């Protein structure tokens, strides 16, 4: 039995005439690392804002951890953590002071601050004003703040933006660990490598509508064009044929070429998740 943590039914969000989210249906299970993808303006951030109670839906039903959103906003708040795409620290405070404020608000021991700073490799800069932090450090401090109270759900809007290679790996590892501990991770990203590496399931959104939702592996399996390029010599010339292996006729043709022609090269066209994303959204993402 799998428990559903996030349930979205027929969600519509309109801003005047513009429809940001158009009839979205989605369920996310407990402990799942869920990727939410889409080109700019697809409605990802709006959906997250609805989930955290910052945006009132035009219609539809949203339940998070059993609570109706936005009706039970006050009750659901302590259940989740939210890492926005823009950092929102108190610049005049040190990293430690920022975290201590939230530790007091969440009524957790101040020792948790040091623990989380160590986990995010920020302990050395803990007593430096946030104003002096680099973008990457601010991002990590934001993640530290939102995981400090061990939320059941963690929403992240582009968590690894502005992070260096080492910090990116650190955050991804952290997210995996959180998933193993049963925390539901709901993240948006433009990094396809990240999606393939850490997400259990992925939903692709385009113009406010859900295009598809599946595991990254299934996505590639279902959506790649299985094409083989074969080059062979015939009458002294090199001939090139591209064969889509979706039909028996094409597969027999490939077998024929390999058995009866003088093959120069035979190679498959490798598709990855990036190509699937472009195919599904019908446009290049930015």
């Amino acid at each position, binding site marked *: 039995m799998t428990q*559903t943590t996030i349930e979205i039914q027929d969600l519509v969000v309109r801003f005047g005439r513009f429809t940001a989210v158009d009839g979205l249906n989605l369920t996310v299970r407990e402990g799942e690392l869920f990727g939410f993808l889409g080109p700019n303006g697809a409605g990802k951030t709006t959906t997250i804002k609805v989930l955290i109670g*910052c945006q009132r839906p035009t219609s539809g039903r949203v339940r998070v951890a*059993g609570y109706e959103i936005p009706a039970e906003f006050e009750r659901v708040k302590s259940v989740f953590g939210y890492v*926005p795409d823009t950092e929102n620290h*108190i610049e005049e405070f040190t990293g430690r002071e920022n975290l201590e404020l939230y530790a007091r608000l969440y009524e957790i021991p101040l020792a948790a601050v040091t623990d989380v700073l160590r986990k995010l490799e920020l302990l050395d800069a803990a007593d430096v004003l946030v104003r002096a932090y680099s973008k990457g450090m601010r991002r990590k401090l934001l993640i530290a703040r939102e995981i400090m109270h061990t939320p059941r759900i963690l929403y992240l809007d582009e968590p690894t933006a502005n992070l260096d290679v080492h910090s990116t790996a650190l955050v991804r590892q952290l997210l995996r660990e959180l998933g193993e501990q049963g925390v539901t991770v709901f993240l948006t990203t433009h990094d396809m490598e990240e999606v393939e590496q850490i997400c259990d399931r992925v939903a692709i959104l385009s113009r406010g509508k859900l295009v598809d939702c599946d595991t990254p592996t299934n996505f590639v399996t279902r959506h790649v064009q299985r094409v083989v390029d074969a080059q062979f010599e015939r009458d002294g010339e090199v001939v090139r044929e591209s064969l889509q292996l979706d039909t028996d006729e094409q597969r027999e043709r490939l077998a024929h070429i390999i058995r009866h022609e003088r093959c120069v090269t035979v190679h498959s066209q490798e598709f990855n998740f990036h190509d699937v994303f472009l195919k599904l959204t019908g446009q290049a993402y930015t």
Partner: protein
Amino acid sequence: MDPPIQLVLTAPNEAISPMMVRLPMLQVLIGRELKRLQKNPSALLMLGLLSAIALLMATSKPVQEAGPPKAKGFWIYYDKETPWLAHLKEHPLNDPPVHVLSQDQIQNVDARGRPVFAPGHCGIAVKHQVKDGQETAVIVAQFFGKSPDILYPFWNWFWPEVAKFQTPELNILPFNVPMAGRALSLEETPLSELVKTELVGTLLLLIVMFFTCCHLQVSFTSQDRERGTLTALVLSPARLSEIMLSKYIFHLTLSLLGCVAVIAIMQPASLLSPVLWIVVVLTSIGLMSVGTCIATLTKTQAAAALLALCYMLAGSLLFYLSTKFSGFMLIRRAAFENYSFLLLYHALKGPLSLGQASGLVTMSGLVAVWIGLARTTFYRYGWR
């Protein structure tokens, strides 16, 4: 697409109202505001500067009243025509002027039917009583200010004039009564009379309150909004009511401390005036509500600061225009600062009882309207 999932949605049932306030949470939030103030040296500098100005004003005594106050006129009003009153009509005092008229001729009366005089004028009521064949004329001289000495010019003229009419059948009995208990007619106070130490004190109090409750609060709240720290706070277990209340308590405390400093330096006798503190608290809350609306309806800190400044300038302009054009008086009466200014001035000038402080109820009503507006805008737009 999605595999079949069995929904098990559980949630505790206890009700949480966004209006509920928890004391520990308030303490954390007020501590946050205090820490932010400590990290803003310019705000501390401004508060220090205002206290220094108050000290300078108090020690230099910029405007002092020369000698005891003088009456601008005396109004004798009677219930019955008598020969000695007719005599007084024919031989009036000219400086200051004495007017003699019957009770029915007085048109400007308060809700209880008592005559109302312009500031600086004294009323002399003459009431006749007949008992055992002897007629007694009771003279009740109502004086303004603290001392009946102001009536000397009147008595010096009055007694010689009526002496020849005083017979065993007619007894003239004088009483000096301060104009206590009569509600102050705030709008009748001319600005020219206000340029005194009390005025400087009033202005400094208003500046302190505007700075701490409006400008500083607008600055902090709009900075919170612009940086997204307010959203982060609202998404934490802190409730909207707690966040708003913590801001109010913090800035009100700051305002009260500033006002205590100004009053202690400029007019220490007024420190125990309940009316003064009621007006200070009401004005501070009103200004904080105005500040909350400004911070909520603007996108950036710079825009909010400019709008707060515009509000202050517009208020000053309105106050000035209302002294020139009667049409602006209606708008002025709808501003709680109008009542703040005059009540603060009178409370600083001398003892003022709650009964005398007319306008306090209207001011409370106007402040309540602003609180309602601030709450609605903050809850709806303030943190999103």
